[in-house]
């Protein structure tokens, strides 16, 4: 059942590299990451690829296969014809370190700018939350941080200049997760829009499409956040009430 497949793999470092052709054995049941590993073991011991669990649970092996953002460990070779050339390139939105490995530090930077969970003065073991209430944020906590949603988002995919002001779907979802966390006391609605660029998102759902965890990022996190931001900023009753001094606005939490 094995055959020789044609592969094109991007080799090189930032700004300088090319697609390199390989012919490599493929056996039944293998995924693209297996083939990359075979290349390392037999033809290219220095081929750089980031991976870890090889079970779709850690989100390390993100790349683009024939132009589609994918986890290499979750892309089966059986989805290609034996005579089809499989092209593997690094994710496009982040700078290449070498070969298939990119510098994803942008994401860790953005994570730091979002104010952390704030339980107020809750005491250990005293929190009481209903399952139905925790489930909303639990969906977002399924995120394995593969950053494919960040990679595919057109706001930054071809627009480096937006990276400064835009946290990307993963971290806008993180804001949503904290906003919907039943025990969280902070209010991140203002900064979602002002500091983290929620307004850039025009809900094309590319992020949802590539999510290997099948999280409904747009429908369940980004759109509800947009609604909450509107409620915070533009609700006429709240506006009038606050002008008359009968509605007290909550404290906005600044970015961290």
């Amino acid at each position, binding site marked *: 059942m094995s055959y020789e497949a044609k592969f094109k793999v991007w080799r090189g470092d930032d700004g300088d590299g090319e697609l390199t052709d390989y012919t490599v054995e493929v056996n039944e049941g293998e995924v693209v990451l*297996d083939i990359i590993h075979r290349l390392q073991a037999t033809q290219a011991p220095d081929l750089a690829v980031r991976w870890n669990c090889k079970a779709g*649970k850690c989100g390390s092996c993100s790349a683009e296969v024939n132009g589609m953002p994918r986890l290499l460990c979750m892309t089966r070779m059986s989805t290609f014809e034996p005579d089809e050339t499989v092209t593997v390139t690094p994710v496009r939105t982040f700078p290449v370190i070498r070969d298939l490995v990119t510098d994803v530090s942008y994401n860790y930077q953005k994570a*730091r700018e979002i104010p*952390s969970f704030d339980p107020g003065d809750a005491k250990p073991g005293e929190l009481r939350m209903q399952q139905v209430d925790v489930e909303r944020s639990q969906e977002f*906590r399924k995120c394995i941080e593969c950053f494919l949603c960040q990679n595919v988002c057109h706001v930054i995919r071809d627009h480096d200049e937006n990276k400064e002001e835009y946290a990307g779907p993963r971290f806008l979802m993180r804001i949503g997760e904290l906003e919907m966390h039943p025990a969280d006391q902070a209010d991140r609605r203002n900064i979602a829009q002002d500091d983290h660029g929620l307004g850039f998102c025009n809900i094309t759902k590319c992020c949802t499409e590539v999510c290997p965890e099948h999280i409904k990022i747009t429908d369940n996190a980004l759109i509800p956040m947009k609604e909450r931001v509107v409620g915070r900023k533009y609700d006429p009753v709240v506006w009038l009430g606050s002008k008359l001094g009968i509605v007290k606005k909550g404290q906005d939490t600044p970015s961290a």
Partner: protein
Amino acid sequence: MTEIERHSYDVVVIGAGGAGLRAAIEARLQGKKTAIISKSLFGKAHTVMAEGGAAAAMGNVNANDNWMVHFRDTMRGGKFMNSWRMAELHAKEAPERIWELELWGALFDRTKEGKISQRNFGGHEYPRLAHVGDRTGLELIRTAQQKIVALQQEDHAEHGDYEANLKVWAETTVTRLLKDADGKICGVFGYVRETGKFVVFEAPAVVLATGGIGKAFKVTSNSWEYTGDGHALALLAGGTLLNMEFVQFHPTGMVWPPSVKGILVTESVRGDRGVLRNSEGDRFMFDYIPEVFKEQYATSPEEGDRWYDDPDNNKRPPELLPRDEVARAINSEVKAGRGSPHGGVFLTVVDRMPGGAAEIVKRLPSMYHQFKELADVDITKEAMEVGPTCHYVMGGVEVDPDTGAALVPGLFAAGEVSGGMHGSNRLGGNSLSDLLVFGRRAGLGASEYVDGLEARPAVPEDVVAAATTEALAPFEREDGENPYAVHAELQQTMNTLVGIIRKEGELEEAIAALGKLRERVANVGVDPVAVGDGGRGYHPGWHLALDLRNMLLVSEAVAKAALERQESRGGHTRDDHPGMSAEWRKINLVCSLAGDPSAPHVELRRQPLTPMRTDLLELFENDELKKYLTAEELPGGPAGEAETGEAEADEAEAAAGSGATAAGAAENEEGDR
């Protein structure tokens, strides 16, 4: 001249899984400038693979649960080889550690009253595992990761620098622990994977939290990071390893297709009517029911099949025998030539459920999903190929139970890399709570150690030079061997000769083979790449060349300890010594390095197990203790029966009940899913 970066910290934590992150959080909370060194990106550690949950006797689901019950379950699971002090601390402190996670943002599944829900698991008397669906490990990692970010935000607010007091060195590997002239830890030496740049981290205290050793075996559920780094680093620094022979193999890991080799197939497949068959189509488990279990297990497939619907009037099918029995049977079938095409046996649920394919999908959703997505195998139509997979190492760095301190001054260890807590066999769910309890204790222990030092130990230049030479050596060798080929052979050797079932002859063969591999490991070579310092930028071949040293050392430790211990207990099964021996229970096997420091070998020493404290011993009934302890060790001496006073009557009753439960649960113990 090779350029070397230098950084200075109070505490350096090696490993960024649950134990490492918890240790680092504690050290930072104690005011220590702390570094976390991680081979992977931040938040990717192997802890994410844990599914079942974290065991903690919170009593949310059954109010009868408490630390004493948890302690007893843990000791039984480990066949009384556990460090009882660790098991005690673990059982007592696990609830606090779970509640703490909740205040850091973790969202566990809930009970109707809104408390943290707890699930039943093999070996645990009461529902005890705090969980989030089947992704508890991810929740634990993410929560600890986000707590670290929160602490960094505090530091940013105060010092204008997120990394002022707590920095994560992602994709950085440590190759040596450094010691000063007095033999104290003074730092670590490593390289940044991205650039190949060498870094010296000067620090008086180091916490090892590097996880396990699974990558020394061919078939494992472990990720590439699990190369026994911490075990080897400790040995090389003069530390000791405890009971390395105890390695947990799960009987049903996938062996085919290659993309999922080693990944666990949950035990509930067998609980939900799954059957094991050999290449001739025989349901072979009926041939492997040991004498002691004859009464409890069905003798015909018909009776076994009736059990699922009517367990009161039928005996259970032998697919549900204890894990070591199932694994042994699979092993025998494969050796007799009746294995599946890829060296396992068949596990199938096809046509086994009354509701057909739809019911399979409903009852085993994650398995269905896992096979479909990862392997393109539809378990409603095809059989799975399964075989034993290396899963967890109970053995590890010998530490002080309270502080995690190893024998080397300044060295600490927590989590899977440390030994003792789980004895000869770990219960499912006890790993995640172990990480939290002992991660915190090691972080605290390291901080207190630093506070007690009069002066910071200085890093001698010659040890840095030696570490540099060692790390560069694979580039220097002309015509060096391909490290991937050597790794494959090491894994094959360990899998075949030091696997789940062990024999004296095979272990001797393994030790001889490892001796030859030692020479080959010393001769692996790689060529520089186009980027990074000295062509070392993101160079996987070089990384593996350096990791091989560690895998070889732990392999030698496992093989030698396995040859020495002439009994079968928990994660150590000797075909030639099938029984459990109360005399052997009293003996810990301790590994250290001896001989020429440039080519040291593993040496074994027998060390008596510390007798259990009386008040802990009294938590058990004498009848149960008799199964494990020698007559002299029993309370009241060889002749005396323990007196059960009025006050203890309730306790004794509870123990009796739990004994019965544990016997049933033993068939399911150490289940990770």
